[in-house]
């Protein structure tokens, strides 16, 4: 029963790492799009 917790912890940790990275990609993408729009407005 205790080992099940480790199994779930590993799977949850895997998806948290991927979710965090995908989130960072979205943030960077939005920042760059905004910057490009600012430059094109000038």
């Amino acid at each position: 029963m205790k080992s099940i917790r480790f199994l779930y912890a590993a799977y949850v940790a895997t998806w948290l790492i991927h979710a965090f990275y995908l989130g960072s990609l979205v943030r960077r993408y939005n920042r760059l799009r905004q910057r490009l729009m600012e430059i094109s407005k000038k």
Partner: protein
Amino acid sequence: MKRAFPILAALTAILLVYALYQALVVAPTERTMGDVQRIFYYHVPSAWTAFLLFFVNLVASVVYLVRRNPKADAVAVVTAEVGVVFCTVVLVTGPIWARPVWGIWWTWDVRLTSTLVLWLIYVSYLVLRRFSDSAQTPVLAAVLAIFGALDVPLVYFSIWFFRTQHPQPVIGGGGSIDPRMWHVLLINWLAFSCFAFLICWSRYRLESLRRDVEEAEALESLLDAPPGHDAKAKVAHGEAGFNRRPQ
């Protein structure tokens, strides 16, 4: 190509859910370790995917060194970054498996240590790309990537050459696993490889956008430059434009 992305993303999501079902429900329970062995279906495919990405990084780095092709440089950055993410998964899931099976989170075993060194090499690669402003950064990074890739076979074959606590490799390790476990392992690897490909695709688009922004900023600085200010020289020396901080 842009239309293909959502279709591939949907197919990959279905494949990942199917692979998760296979790993948690269909795969047989290992006799001695019990359910905790199922971590293997995330740990091993993540390691293989990281190795594959580092191999692509090596090829792209060599191509960049030979041809100075900026697209090869962009592929190298993308695969190094996504490879580090998958290698992080390996380094996190490994200790979570080790705690109930070995009774410890970590040991300075050759396989574990060489994997940590591999991760550190590629993290240093990314740090170099992020914080160095020199126009020579892509060249230095490509050379570092070649040294990093040399660690990959060391990680994989360390189990053959040294006494280690880590289980034998699934391929070429001399051991055998249940065919149903093999099947689940391969499905998970396929799912993670498709997922990695999609992340690389997105990251490549981000890299292209970043380079577009840098070009636009360089042009802007040329237009805004006061009389006597040599913005062209700034671009030429890599302080602005395509060569600047190729993260």
